[in-house]
Each structure stands twice: as C-alpha cells, then as structure tokens.
C-alpha cells in the first residue's frame, strides 16, 4: 500500500503545484469540476484516478479497469493503455488507429480526457521567473536562453525524425535505411550531443558563480 499512496501523494502535490504556477489554470479547471479521469497503464500496478474540483485529487484505484468502468455516470472517463503509447495520445489523429490496434481502450466521456490534456498543454509557466526567485535575474536569463536554444534544436530533430519514420511507415518504403541516411542521422545526433554538453557546461558555470 504505502508505495502506491506515496506515489499518488507525490503526484498530487506536484500536479497542484504545477497548475498553481499558471494563474489561468483556475479558469481551465472550471469545466472539469466534479469530473474524473481514470488512467490504467499496463506497466503500473494500480490505476490512477484524477478527481477535479478547484484542485486535483489523485486516488489509487484498488479495482481493475473493467470494474471501474461500471461507473458510467457521464462525469467520468476511463483510459487503459501502456507507457509507450502515452506520448501518441496528444495526437487526436492517432487515437482511432491505436484503438483498432488494441493498444488503447477508452470508455466514458472523451471530452474529460481532452480537457485534461488541454489543462496541461496550455500551462503557460514563466520558468525564467520561477528560477529567478532562487538564482536572481541574470543567471536565470542566461540559463533560459541556452535551454531555449537546446529545446528548439531538440524539437526540430524530433520533428525530422518523426516525419522520416512517418513516411517510412505510411508509404511502406523499404525499411532498410540507406547508408546516406544513417550518416545524416549520426551527424544530427552528434550535433545534439554537442548542444547538450554546451548546455551542461553553461549550467555548471552558472552554479559555480552563485
């Protein structure tokens, strides 16, 4: 027991701290008030239910997905999936495919899952300001400029990778990748690694200067 309770307690504290950092969250919580989202992930021993009010309460489900799904009260949504599928859930276009492939089970009010995703996706937290509370303005700004650049490059890399993979799958190309492509991929990984190292060095410098 205490393991699951410790997990939900930590998750609850983190989620509520996170949403408190964006003043507009309170407004986005309003349509969710009184609703529940239960998520069962194959790799986790228990399901987790988020209960929305003016905050989020996190409960561990002592019952199975099938038992919990009995409560179809129009105020609840139930999801069962696995860890690797989670990232694709943000793309609505993928959902039907995942359900057909038996990688995702969805029951109840879908809009609750969508509103929850929106609540977190639309979080607009001024991390620079949050960090500045601890480090002062200038170091915070420096750290964030580096982080921003790193993030942009990482995102661009991710997009290219996704596009490449997407094409390979949809057009059912030969899966064997050409030598040229492999070299190109390696180059990008190298560039990314350099960026990470630069970012890390920058951070250590900032830490030392404090």
């Amino acid at each position: 027991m205490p393991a699951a309770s410790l997990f939900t307690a930590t998750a609850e504290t983190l989620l509520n701290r996170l949403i408190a950092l964006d003043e507009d969250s309170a407004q986005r919580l309003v349509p969710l008030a009184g609703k529940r989202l239960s998520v069962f992930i194959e790799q986790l021993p228990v399901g987790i239910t988020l209960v929305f009010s003016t905050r989020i309460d996190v409960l561990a489900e002592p019952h199975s997905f099938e038992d919990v799904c009995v409560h179809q009260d129009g105020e609840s949504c139930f999801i069962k999936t696995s860890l690797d599928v989670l990232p694709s859930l943000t793309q609505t276009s993928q959902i039907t495919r995942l359900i057909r492939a038996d990688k995702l089970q969805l029951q109840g009010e879908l809009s609750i899952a969508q509103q929850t995703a929106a609540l977190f996706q639309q979080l607009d937290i001024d991390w620079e300001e949050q960090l500045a509370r601890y480090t002062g303005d200038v170091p915070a700004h420096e750290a964030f400029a580096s982080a921003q650049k790193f993030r942009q490059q990482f995102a661009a890399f991710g997009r290219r990778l996704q596009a490449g993979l997407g094409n390979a799958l949809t057009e059912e190309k030969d899966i064997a990748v050409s030598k040229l492509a492999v070299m190109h991929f390696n180059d990008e990984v190298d560039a990314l690694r350099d960026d990470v190292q630069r970012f890390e060095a920058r951070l250590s410098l900032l830490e030392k200067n404090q």
Partner: protein
Amino acid sequence: MSDTQSRDDASQNMDESVTEQTHFGFKQVDKSQKASLVANVFDSVAAKYDVMNDLMSFGVHRLWKRYTIDCAGVRAGHRVLDIAGGTGDLTAKFSRLVGPTGSVTLADINLSMLKVGRDKLRDQGLVSNIDYVQADAEALPFPDNSFDVVTMAFGLRNVTEKQNALNSIYRVLKPGGRLLVLEFSKPASEHLSKIYDMYSFHILPRMGQMVASDAESYRYLAESIRMHPDQETLKGMFEQAGFEQCDYSNLTGGIVALHRGYKF
C-alpha cells in the same frame, strides 16, 4: 434512532459487560468515567494534534489515511460520515470527492477537536457540503440507512463499548454502504513488535512532553493501542454487528490495520 434500537445496541455489547469496569490505557476505571477521561485527553491535545500526528508517525499517517480514502470508493453525490473525525483530515478529501451534490458529516464526541477541524477546513475553503455534529459513536444521532460510506480513523480504540459503536454505525449505513475502520493494531512480526513497543513507551511520551507539554496523553495513546482488539478479534466484532464481506489489510507491518465491512 428509535429507543428500542438504542436499547438493542446496548444489550448486544460484548465488551466486558459483566463488570462495571473498563480500561483506560492500562488503568482500570469505572465504565461511566472513561468517556470523560478520553475527552480530557483530546481537549488537551487538540491544538497540537496535527503537528504531533506528523511527528509521531513521521508523516506516514497521511499515507494510511490516503489508502483508506482509496478504498472508500466515495463518489460524487455520496453521503459520507467521518465519525471520530477530529481535525478532519479524511473529511477534507471526501468533501471534494462528493462534490456539491453530496455531503460529508464530520462527527466527534469532543468539541475542541471539532472546532480545530472546522477552522482548518474553512481555511481550506471547504464549507458548502460539510456538517459538523457533536456525537458519540455509540449512539449516533442519525436516522437509519443515512450514509453511503462511514469511516472511523484512529477513533474506535477510544470508545468505551466498541461493539455498540459498530452496531450503531451499521444502523445508519444505507444497504450497500460500507464501513472502514483505520486503527492501530497488532504488528505481524515479533521483531517489529519489540521496536514498536520501545518507540511507543519510551520515545512517544517524551515527544509528547517536548512538543505538546503533555506526556500523560501520549502515554495513554500507547497504552490504549495495546488494549485494542487485534485484527481477527475486530473482524469478528464487525461480523457480530451484521457486516458482511469483512476483511482487513495490514499497513506498515500491522502497526495499523484497515478493516472493511459492507451492509447488504
């Protein structure tokens, strides 16, 4: 509650009904005295109760309560009774889970504890769906079949006639409702038992003295835990009251147990 019902409850009590004595910690006292002695303890600890709970259990009481809430199956619209609810830890969460269409009754025999609870919950902005009722668990002042869920956390061991309390809770539960009792119990291993004894008889009263200037109340706490029925005995008392599908889970090696029973 009808008068006949309350007399029935009283006559069914199994707790040392032959003698007029009962235990208060390790002491033997007159049955009629126990309630007021317990009241003194909680009058004395009310103000420092929450801090002491965190200190004494290293914060683990929050996890025990969380597990109780997970098992309570409380949903929007439910009517919940948190008896011996004290400073309202369980009530706070239930209030959000039942939402505006449900309600939570925080009941306790002790006014000082209820007041601390009410102030704390109001500070958290929880007002609209909570009632505060001063009540004795042995004779609950609610109509039959009133609640979907009843919880009692760390309260039962303080009650003079525990069987009366279970009977009374059974009466106010709706058919299909469930009772959860979270209470100190008997550690499963001898080894843990020894460490736990040392902690509760030697360290706990000193902590009570340091933080709340009240060693006596915390000595009572340790003693009352030892006098409380063990897991199987309490399960039997649930069944005696009429509960079905009774079971319990040991938490933290049996230092605490969560008992569950349904009224069908």
